């Protein structure tokens, strides 16, 4: 396959940035999207040019490190797929592919396709601790959790924090990320003690950085883990209760 790649190049946060076009030839359909970038970067390095900076780590869709906008879709055209799991067979010979970093005011471009997602860390930090006994591992079935609840909590816990929800959202809202993180703890007995304080703090922190949900549903469509926007409804409901429960609290 021969591919024309329009890639976003940006020296650093203060640089304007621009698209640059590269011809990538002899691309195997079995290559992953990131491997295609690796091949191009190897060539650029040999030619004495600066390789395209992008984030990646596990390359099996479980770490959430990779993630770019491919032809206007977060993680590319295939559903339930992180960028590293996307293969070149999803494209056709002669295609022009536009690749751009996640865009949001809170996601500053560090270089080329790499953005700073530390606003997510601020939301996680705001969540604080959960009250569990430390020490040796507890007896497995000491805390009963109904199967449906465990399954739902696990669906939320599948979030890998890649940021595709923010990237796909026309409002740059981080509702799906925050809802996943809030819900997977709020649903379980281990996380229920701090349910309302966690919900309030995480949502308030989220709103310092990100936009507001208008229920387009783009985040759900872009999520490589197919996390449902039902969790956003769940978080919204918990937030109302939290504001009532936590009133007057410093």
């Amino acid at each position, binding site marked *: 396959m021969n591919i024309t790649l329009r890639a976003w190049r940006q020296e650093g946060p203060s640089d304007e940035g621009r698209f640059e076009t590269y011809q990538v030839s002899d691309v195997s359909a079995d290559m992953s999207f990131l491997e295609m970038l690796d091949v191009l970067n190897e060539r650029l390095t040999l030619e004495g040019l600066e390789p395209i900076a992008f984030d990646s780590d596990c390359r099996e869709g479980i770490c959430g490190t990779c993630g770019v906008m491919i032809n206007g879709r977060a993680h590319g055209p295939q559903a339930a797929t992180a960028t590293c799991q996307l293969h070149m067979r999803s494209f056709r010979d002669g295609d022009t592919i536009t690749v751009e970093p996640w865009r949001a005011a809170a996601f500053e471009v560090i270089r080329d396709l790499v953005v700073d997602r530390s606003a997510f860390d601020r939301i996680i930090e705001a969540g604080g601790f959960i009250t569990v006994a430390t020490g040796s591992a507890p007896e497995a079935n000491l805390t009963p959790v109904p199967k449906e609840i465990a399954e739902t909590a696990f669906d939320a816990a599948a979030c890998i924090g890649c940021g595709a929800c923010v990237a796909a959202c026309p409002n740059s809202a981080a509702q799906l990320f925050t809802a996943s993180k809030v819900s997977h703890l709020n649903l379980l007995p281990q996380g229920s003690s701090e349910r309302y304080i966690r919900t309030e703090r995480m949502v308030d922190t989220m709103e310092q950085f990100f936009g507001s949900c*208008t229920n*387009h549903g783009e985040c759900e469509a872009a999520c490589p883990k197919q996390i449902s926007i039902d969790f956003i409804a769940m978080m919204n409901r918990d937030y*109302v209760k939290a504001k009532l429960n936590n009133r007057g609290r410093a």
Partner: protein
Amino acid sequence: MKKRLRLTVSEAFTIFGQSMPTSPATPAPVSVSRRRPWPVEFYRSAVGKKWVMGITGIALLGFVLAHMIGNLKVYLGDGQLDSYAHFLRELLYPLLPKTVTLWLMRTGLVIAFLLHIHAAASLTLLNRRANTAYRGPRDLAVASYASRTMRWSGVIVAVFLLWHLADLTWGVTPMAAEGWTPGAVEANLVASLSRGGVAVLYVVANLLLGIHIYHGAWSLFQSLGFAHPSYKRWRRWFAQAFSAAIVIGNVSIPIAVWTGMVG
């Protein structure tokens, strides 16, 4: 005096002539809030504003439905629409003086409208600040036409609403038709909609209203936190049926006037 042996991590770094490594700074928050009484605090949050939009949305949907059903009285002829209008002015009379109930409902509606518009405007501003545009093409996967155009359909419907009030409630020219008389609801309606351009305006405005409430009637469940699997699939159905009923009911009237079925 006992000498302090322990060092903090940053002190230890200083001794070795280094500054403590710090993680790269997160971009500055878009907004920071302080603690206030809880309803204020709640409304200051974006989730709170969406909740208020959902609640006021329900009130406005209720009004739109009642208004549409009331309008259908025009098909009964025989002055039924006029007597319905008269009945509204005397609602709960003699428990309350005449028009008091009507004014209470109007006050509630005005408050609902203002809150709905204020929340929408300030959330739009928040979203503008939070958003950075893509430089390449953007391919939306699922966002509907209705959801993408909410602010435009909302603004146009609000402007139309003022026009509609001037036309049929206040009788202000040039919006109202010639010969507008207070209380002669059916005659005013027929006179107004007999003007071709006005009839088209009413049809277009009601189609936009339908688009707006189609997304709103679904979206409010999300904003208020109702997504239980037992009724989840009915939310979309409800929004479709509700908006279709409003559009069909309202649009039928200009068509009926135009075809001579009414008036």
